[in-house]
């Protein structure tokens, strides 16, 4: 049987955490429910699963690429126009280091940005079940359950303190 989304809206973090506990107790895998908020709550506030990521690899890869590009850019352009100035070597390391440093940092930052977007699973072209009241401060508990469990999940969310339970995206402005 196909799974269907259901979204409970809660006014307090305590109630949302209770809903999470209730879903867990009802046998819903942790990968099948999520908490949607308009502000970052402290990690673990809802008893949610630990989220691993590989973001830290991105700046290192970017820095390595930028370093290579910087060294190549400065050395090759120096050699391409070999004008001796003040008896200094054509490939002078201190000035090369300046431009190489900037290219290293620039590429590291660009790769970090790519990493943040990629690891955040963005862009999400298909948004799924959502309610605009979440950005008004309500906490959404979004569960994906078997279709025959929708009614029982709705009851469970309501008992945990949900002020509303929705099955179709909506809310003001939606």
């Amino acid at each position, binding site marked *: 049987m196909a799974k269907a989304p259901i979204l409970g809206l809660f006014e307090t973090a305590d109630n949302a955490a209770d809903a999470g506990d209730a879903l867990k107790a009802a046998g819903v895998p942790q990968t099948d429910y999520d908490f949607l908020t308009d502000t970052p709550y402290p990690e673990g506030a809802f008893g949610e699963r630990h989220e691993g990521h590989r973001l830290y690899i991105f700046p290192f890869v970017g820095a390595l690429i930028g370093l290579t590009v910087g060294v190549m850019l400065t050395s090759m352009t120096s050699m391409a*126009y070999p004008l001796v100035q003040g008896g200094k070597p054509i490939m002078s390391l201190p000035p090369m280091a300046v431009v190489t*440093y900037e290219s290293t940092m620039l590429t590291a930052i660009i790769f970090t940005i790519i990493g943040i977007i990629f690891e955040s699973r963005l862009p999400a072209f298909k948004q799924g079940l959502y309610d605009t009241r979440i950005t008004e401060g309500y906490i959404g508990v979004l569960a994906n359950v078997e279709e025959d469990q929708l009614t029982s999940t709705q009851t469970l969310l309501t008992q945990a303190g949900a002020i509303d339970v929705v099955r179709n995206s909506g809310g003001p402005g939606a």
Partner: protein
Amino acid sequence: MQEGTPLQSRQINRELLVSILNSPKWFWMAVGILGLIVLFAMGTAGLMINKGMGVTGLNRPVMWGFFITNFVFWIGISHAGVMLSAILRLSKAEWRRPATRAAEILTVFSLMTAMMMPLIHTGRPWRLVYWIYTVPFVPYDYARGIWPNVRSPLVWDPSAVYTYLTSSILFVIIALIPDFAVLRDRTTGISNKIYGMLAMGWQGNPRQWKLQIIAGVLLSALILPVFVSVHSIVSWDFGMAVSVKSWHSTIFAPYFVVGAVHSGVSAVAFVLIILRYIYGWQNYIRHEHIDALARLLIVVATGWFYFLVMEIVFGFYGREADEIAVRNLQFMITPWNIWMMIFVGVTYFLPVAIWLSRSARRNLWIMSLACISVNVGMWLERFLIIVPGLARKQLLTFDWYTYTPSAVEWIIVGATFAMVSMLMLVIARVVPLIPLYDIKEGEILRTEIKIGRVSVPATFRED
């Protein structure tokens, strides 16, 4: 340090999105007036391009004047964004929350303005295409086989500034994604579609928030070294110039960086005061925030003053003829000596005297005066480094000269302030200048704890 009353999410949305959803009646009039000033300056720049650089006060040997002074000034202002955003983010200073976004956006606009100045200064800005070397392996003047001279500080400079500009823009955009989602949920029609695209399907699940928080810290740590490098490299435009001996100072890099932070943070404090006034953000930009910025500025200003004194003392101590000639101009010859006195007074003594008083720090009119005073002084500082150095560039008095800016230079430089003001107003119409989620996070983390018989505000701080 917490004042004010706890705020609800809905109230935060309503109040902080007022600049976007209900822009005030004066908005278009203000943008129009500022736009006309910018257009007038563009026409003046067009005249300058048409007639040649002879319409400016630039001469031989003073070939850098108002335009380059203004370039260094706006680069300095741009340092506020990273200073506040990155350092305060990394140190988890609670009072950063309302200040970061405005500071970052001010960084972007002031960098753009700064980069315009050398282009205008060239007199032939269409030759920009020859300068574009930062795209790897794209040479300039390829036809004649002339490649960028990596040994020139004038090549390091754009590489650093463009790195900083690109990084700052990306930093702002990443931090805006959650706020774009709020706007997506509050708008309809075409605005809804645009904000929806910009929000990229943001839902606000724990994974996205975790990455967003790490992004703030990681990007801050990456941009900080760039921030230090940018104004260091701008100082090397002078410090490593072969021909002007009085600019050969080993402390120029830290001196310029601290000076930039001094002017930049003052500018941010002023912008925050203006935003508080025009959008009624008293609940967000509170006296405690301006007070904290002023206290920070006392330290920054004193650090800057130390470098200033050292720079002057080292200049005199060597007793080299070139250096003494420049110092003689700065300290003994009118009107330069009067400008020097005004510069030191308005950059250090007047504002620091104001900031030492708690009541003055919490008086927004006085704080505005102090912040403007610092920036007038910092503009003069750059002018008094650049012009006297060039005016006394040659050893023989036969080659000494002075500089009087023309109306063309006054108009173009004056219009850059109108341009940045206009851009700040326009961007306030499009994105929230105070980060919504940051304020909301501050609200959920704040509480009150009872110690003995008093209740004191407290904030939970996550590691």
